[in-house]
């Protein structure tokens, strides 16, 4: 079974509380940091990791992630190089790994070659926000299925109930719940409006677990999100930690621990 599915199954069976999914951009801060950051995240207690494939025109991203994309591209990151960096990540890396990015670089690599590489390196899922659902269903799903790669869909506060149901029906793994109408890195926190939206989603009794992302930046926002879902996703706040890190492993550990449990933040 896919590592993502296994993780959520296990969470359900063991009643484990909120899972933490952390996003970082491949090749940031330095080209060779990808595996290093991934390893440090796993060692610090991240439950899943989302590796961003840098893109020149990330329209769904705010300034922080744009900056990391630009820097990574300057560092010479490409999809090809990313697969080389991840080539031997298994078995040392045991957490589920997802690749997140925009569809154009994936199309240029070739959908089939891309999925094949994912399977070979041990990537479990993809998040491609600008891949339309109908194109996925009509053209790519059989390829994803053949290689056992899950495609993670997003829902937002503006997504209609009918569409949420449709997304739930074709999703596997989890549903990425975007907390507010915004690009990544917004500073709004978790407002009352959002809580109403999260409650609405809970009441829908979807078959897939949900992770809440966008605006999650510390223990308070993480635990708030976990009250309403299977866990939370941190992106921009973690990129800021990487951008300012003096000692990558140590600073990553300090941050992740502070998000999961504030009391051990200084340990």
């Amino acid at each position: 079974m896919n590592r993502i599915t296994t993780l959520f199954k296990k969470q359900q069976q063991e009643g484990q509380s909120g899972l933490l999914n952390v996003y970082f951009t491949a090749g940031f801060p330095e080209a060779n940091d990808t595996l290093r950051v991934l390893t440090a995240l796993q060692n610090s207690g991240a439950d899943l990791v989302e590796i961003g494939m840098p893109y020149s025109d990330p329209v769904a991203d705010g300034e922080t992630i744009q900056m990391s994309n630009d820097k990574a591209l300057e560092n010479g990151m490409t999809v090809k190089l990313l697969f080389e960096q991840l080539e031997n990540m298994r078995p040392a890396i045991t957490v589920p790994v997802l690749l997140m990015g925009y569809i154009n670089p994936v199309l240029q690599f070739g959908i089939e070659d891309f999925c094949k590489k994912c399977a070979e390196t041990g990537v479990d899922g993809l998040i491609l926000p600008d891949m339309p659902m109908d194109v996925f269903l009509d053209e790519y799903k059989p390829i994803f299925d053949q290689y056992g790669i899950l495609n993670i869909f997003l829902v937002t506060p503006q997504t209609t109930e009918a569409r949420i149901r449709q997304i739930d029906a074709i999703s596997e793994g989890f549903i990425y719940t975007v907390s507010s109408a915004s690009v990544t890195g917004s500073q709004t926190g978790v407002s009352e409006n959002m809580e109403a939206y999260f409650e609405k989603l809970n009441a829908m009794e979807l078959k897939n677990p949900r992770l809440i992302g966008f605006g999650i930046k510390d223990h308070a926002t993480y635990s708030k999100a976990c009250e309403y879902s299977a866990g939370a996703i941190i992106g921009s706040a973690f990129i800021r930690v990487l951008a300012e890190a003096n000692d990558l492993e140590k600073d990553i550990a300090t941050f992740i621990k502070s998000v999961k449990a504030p009391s051990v933040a200084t340990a």
Partner: protein
Amino acid sequence: METTVANQPYQVNEKGYYGHFGGAFIPEMLYPNVENLRDNYLTIIQSPEFQKEYNDLLRDYVGRPTPLYRAKRLSEKYGTNIFLKREDLCHTGAHKINNTIGQILLAQRLGKKRIVAETGAGQHGVATATVCALMDLECIVYMGALDIERQAPNVARMKMLGAEVRAATCGSKTLKDATNEAMRHWINNPEDTHYIIGSVVGPHPYPDMVARFQAIISEEIKWQLQEHTGKENPDYVVACVGGGSNAAGAFYHYLDRPSVKLVAVEAAGMGVNSGHSAATTALGKPGVLHGSRTILMQTDDGQVVEPFSISAGLDYPGIGPQHAHLFASGRGTFLSATDEEAVQAAFELTKLEGIIPALESAHALAALGRLGAGPNDTVVVNLSGRGDKDMATYMKHLD
């Protein structure tokens, strides 16, 4: 404006595609907005009440129909019969306002309170700021920091019209980056804002919607050419292509008339192979840009390449999906003109006809010598805009 639901090989199909190109490759955050537009645009623009307001404004405010002018001395020079479609005489100085009038009326009917737009040369920004002033709607225009410098007069016009001009400081600091910022703004303000895209680019239904608003150009050419020559069909229709809206409008009613050659002229910058070019079909490959599957300039890794052109309005790494389809199917002929050729063509038109064209339109004129048009042929060049905004560039070549 074109309102019939087309079912022709070069028009958009019911799924939002032109052949293999088009579609709506957008993040979920934009889906409800784009869906709302898609579900409503045809009904709204086909309503008699919308039609009347749109056509009245085009006539009384924009100054349509724009003349189709027989350019005698230019014709002599090239040994053929050249007509200029005078979009440069539109209010605000370019064809862009045909689209912004249509979209502002649509935005009102969708209950939107604020308009966001991107602009390259500033012509679309000015045309958007103009209709926002007219309709009393808030207006935010994103413009590449580099373009803000090279199109200063248009920045001043937008500000005087009450728009807020915001600099896009990422990437190449030109049109593609301004488009990214406008899309981000729309993601952040999904409910009260309408995004007025300035060309036939973006997710479906934008390319089709903008083309319909620009279709007035060829609708007029047909009857005007009939008056001049006794026949509706020219042998050639020539237009410059940035995103492709003036070309889409000039081609629209000729798409299904195979005897009419459709010639699109892209900006070659310092030369197609100089590494400083915006000749998309010559240099690009199929991919996804700004929400549609089209042809774009990109690296082997799928990163968008920063284009280059002397003309801010053509400085864009993609083309609209309909143009990608015209190119791939062979229905359209795609040429390019360098910066230098465009400037020369602008001076030539000015000298022969007393018309100073926009640098963008000058690219279309620069192709005249390469069409192979003879004394019995009729050529219509879409003169998309006037050159006032480009005087700083032209002055450098005055000696």
